[in-house]
């Protein structure tokens, strides 16, 4: 039952936390850092609500232990809007396109989409659908989530029209 001191950054802010080894990264963010924007749906890796970025890559924070975050740069939903609360392009697109209803799944989708939009490759319809299949939403039926991410990608000039994508739409 070992205890550990972990140092890492969340949304650029350095943190130092003492915790039990069994504390998941999700619980560390929520309980020890007070960042409750990261949601826990299933706690066993299937729903994606808890998705955060660790060193730039999307991770299920319920499947990583907090102690494993030593030295890592973590990004969560709290880091997306500007400090004055102004929503970023992706968040605005979710609002415009009704990409959320109850909002429980939204932090996970936003972090997944943040990664999709920051990658080197441009996003196309096939890659978007393949990636978004990772997360569950019980409200929207997904189409509005796809619309929102597609619109954000277009606005940020990260979108690639593809024949395959047109056929599916």
């Amino acid at each position, binding site marked *: 039952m070992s205890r550990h001191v972990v140092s890492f950054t969340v949304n650029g802010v350095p943190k130092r936390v003492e915790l039990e*080894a*069994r504390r998941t990264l999700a619980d560390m963010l929520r309980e020890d850092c007070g960042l409750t924007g990261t949601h826990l749906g299933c706690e066993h*890796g299937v729903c*994606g609500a808890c998705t955060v970025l660790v060193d730039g*890559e999307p991770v*299920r924070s319920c499947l990583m232990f907090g102690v494993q975050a030593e030295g890592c740069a973590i990004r969560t939903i709290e880091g997306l809007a500007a400090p004055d609360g102004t929503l970023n392009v992706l968040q605005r697109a979710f609002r415009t396109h009704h990409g959320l209803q109850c909002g429980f799944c939204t932090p996970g989708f936003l972090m997944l989409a943040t990664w999709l939009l920051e990658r080197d490759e441009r996003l196309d319809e096939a890659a978007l659908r393949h990636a978004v299949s990772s997360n569950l939403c019980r409200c929207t039926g997904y189409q509005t989530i796809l619309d929102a991410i597609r619109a954000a990608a277009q606005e940020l000039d990260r979108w690639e029209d593809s024949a395959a994508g047109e056929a599916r739409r």
Partner: protein
Amino acid sequence: MAAMKPAAFDYHAPATLAGALDLLRGEEARVLAGGQSLVPTMAFRMARPGILVDINRIPALAYAEKRDGALAIGALARHAWFETPRAGGPLGRLLAAVVRHVAHAPIRTRGTFCGSLAHADAASEWCATVLALGGRMRCASATGTREVAAEEWFQGVFTTALQPGEMLTEVRLPLLGPDWRYGFAEFSRRAGDFALAMAVAVLRVEGGVVRQARIALGGIGGTPVLAKEAALALIGAAPTDAVIATAAETAAACCDPQEDIHAPAEYRRDLVRAMTRRALRQALAA
């Protein structure tokens, strides 16, 4: 569902393989690789390891590269690495085609190739692929190392030839020359889910005739299995639609699919026929 939290354990993150192997001598010790299978089982408390040996801080295990005429895959090679070919020729392309079916992007960033082999889920794409390719597993313990062939690796449901105290340090896959072809097909109910049935085929075609063939099936029983009779039906033949149909029929007839809450055995048998046919068609498409 009630909140699910793992039972308490001691955590170690050694920086060297020797350090990890030393810790694994402890009876209650378990390797933590990507955590994408172990942590869920701990959350359900189906696993309660007393000691976790986290290998993520051992940089020497993070490789997937050509060594001695094979693709050597270290214990920290993540699934996502294989999305871009890690070997030239058909092998790299086969692994890149298969990895798209292994879970989802945020799981592929952490989950490891060797972790899949150690966990040995019957529906693991990597397990069926390693069996089809005739890969070799390198196991190390504090007292020595040994190699196990794929045919001897899978011993039962979530059970491999790995012994207590051992770590799977590397999987070696034979490189495939330019005259090798491959195909992969699986059926799952939702994208990224574990498959109800899958087929991996690797074949060498020379002068319009199949010279070598290996077909592995996954998702249908406790372990992946080789469809030896189906492969035999191809050898020496020109790969026509009729020959492919016969091989697929043979694979379905000779396998022993199991029934579970997801599908009855006969449905799985139908899927084996369809997946084998698809994999072979892919492999043999001009």
